[in-house]
């Protein structure tokens, strides 16, 4: 004899699970479309928490801030990572639970105010190289915290508005480098500095970039060559996003290859040998290796303080 009751129960469970999963994907979409949600979940696992305090962040109250702070609550229960760019701020809270809390907010006169879903709030005030404040409503408690300014490499990756070029900019304190290319025959290496929330990079033959850091993104204009200029947006991105470079010899020709890699692993690169330019081979982001003409080579991620444009 076959009974249907248990099967109906099973089906009810499956239907309910599918409904919840579907509702979740609907809810999660706006979160992933708004870059900060995905961008802010990165730092807790990477360098923010361990970076050493620095002296380069401009942190006097009232001026424009562009800084990253990492710290803990006084009882050590919560680690906090805070990014400030101009008047916008974002933070990640981690209490060793599987779920993190991502917050966003604003900066005004050295005071940082942030909120997240579930009523979690953060208030902090910048004092020299440190930030002090209180996290409220997190796991039903309030946590006083302190965080120190950190110099960290930050990667901003994105595209021009019309998708003509892809670019990655790596900042390291007040230094920055960038690479912009179209994946076929247009490319430029850029070098420059970060001043407050302004990024200014220059390259050879009239190439350049001016950008403004705002929240977790950079907006501005990029010129891969003289007389060509595109508006662009780039978001603060986790590895593997970045600028990658390889200098190799192919058929006796000194060849320099650059790649701009976006956070989703999409990469565009151009190889330059003398005056010849061609699409770069795909880069294996697992071990930074690539194959060209049957030979295997290795590329390296370029740091923000490296020299990529020789005068």
């Amino acid at each position, binding site marked *: 004899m076959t009974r249907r009751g248990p099967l109906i129960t099973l089906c009810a469970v499956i239907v309910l699970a599918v409904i*919840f999963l579907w*509702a979740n994907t609907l*809810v999660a979409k706006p979160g992933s479309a708004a870059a900060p949600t995905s961008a802010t979940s990165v730092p807790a696992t990477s360098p923010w928490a361990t970076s050493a305090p620095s002296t380069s962040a401009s942190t006097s109250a009232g001026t424009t801030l562009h800084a990253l702070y990492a710290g803990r609550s006084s009882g050590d229960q919560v680690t906090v990572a805070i990014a400030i760019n101009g008047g916008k701020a974002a933070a990640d809270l981690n209490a060793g*639970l599987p779920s993190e809390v991502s917050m966003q907010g604003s900066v005004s006169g050295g005071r940082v105010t942030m909120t997240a879903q*579930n009523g979690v709030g953060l208030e902090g005030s910048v004092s020299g190289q440190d930030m002090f404040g209180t996290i409220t409503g997190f796991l*039903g408690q309030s946590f006083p915290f302190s965080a120190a300014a950190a110099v960290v490499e930050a990667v901003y990756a994105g595209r021009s508005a019309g998708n003509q070029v892809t670019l990655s900019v790596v900042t390291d304190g007040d230094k920055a480098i960038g690479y912009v290319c179209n994946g076929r025959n247009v490319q430029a290496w850029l070098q420059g500095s970060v001043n407050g929330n302004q990024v200014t990079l220059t390259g050879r033959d009239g190439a350049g970039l001016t950008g403004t850091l705002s929240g977790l993104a950079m907006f501005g204009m990029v010129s891969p060559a003289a007389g060509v200029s595109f508006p662009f947006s780039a978001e603060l991105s986790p590895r593997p996003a970045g600028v990658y470079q390889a200098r190799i010899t192919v058929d006796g020709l000194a060849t320099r290859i650059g790649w701009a890699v976006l956070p989703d692993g999409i990469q565009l690169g151009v190889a330059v040998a003398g005056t010849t330019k061609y699409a770069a081979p795909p880069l294996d982001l697992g071990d930074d290796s690539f194959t060209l003409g049957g030979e295997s080579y290795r590329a390296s991620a370029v740091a923000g303080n490296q020299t990529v444009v020789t005068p």
Partner: protein
Amino acid sequence: MTTQQVAVAPPRDRWAKPLAVALAGGCAVALALGLYARLHHPARYALDVAGFSSPLYAKAWLTTAAVVFAVVQVATGWRISRQPTAPAPAWMAAVHRWSGRIAILLTVPVIVHCIYALGFQTYSARVYAHCVLGCIFYGAFVAKMLSLVRRDTMPRWVLPVLGFVVFVSLVALWATSALWLFATHGVHS
């Protein structure tokens, strides 16, 4: 006469196959859930249940409610399993079924959040155990449901054993999550 005898005392090969199917189904579900949770990139974000201070507390209370219904389920199940010697009242079977259904449905939003937003994590013994227990719980539940479909052919020990596994894994799930949360972060909504 012969058919009646078969119905009363089915030969071994009549229940071995349905039981094998039920257990294989349960194992497949446990494995599938574990693999999906492990391989799917955690969204770190999921739908909230209104009225709680955080998704964690919503999940903890849903699981607690599920455990309460599971206790009712096990109590009635234990009584029903003594059926041949002491027949249970008819309402008890209904209470058994519905407490079980409510309990399992209460866990669905929780497991969807666990798997979708967090995934299979191994960073501490508690979390590791919780993830494994979650797979076992749903696997045992599916095995029990599939066994129920052909329960007339099953030996009497099958359902109590599976029910016991479902109940113990649910209580262990609750202890490694809700109880831990209440103990470390306080009992509130």
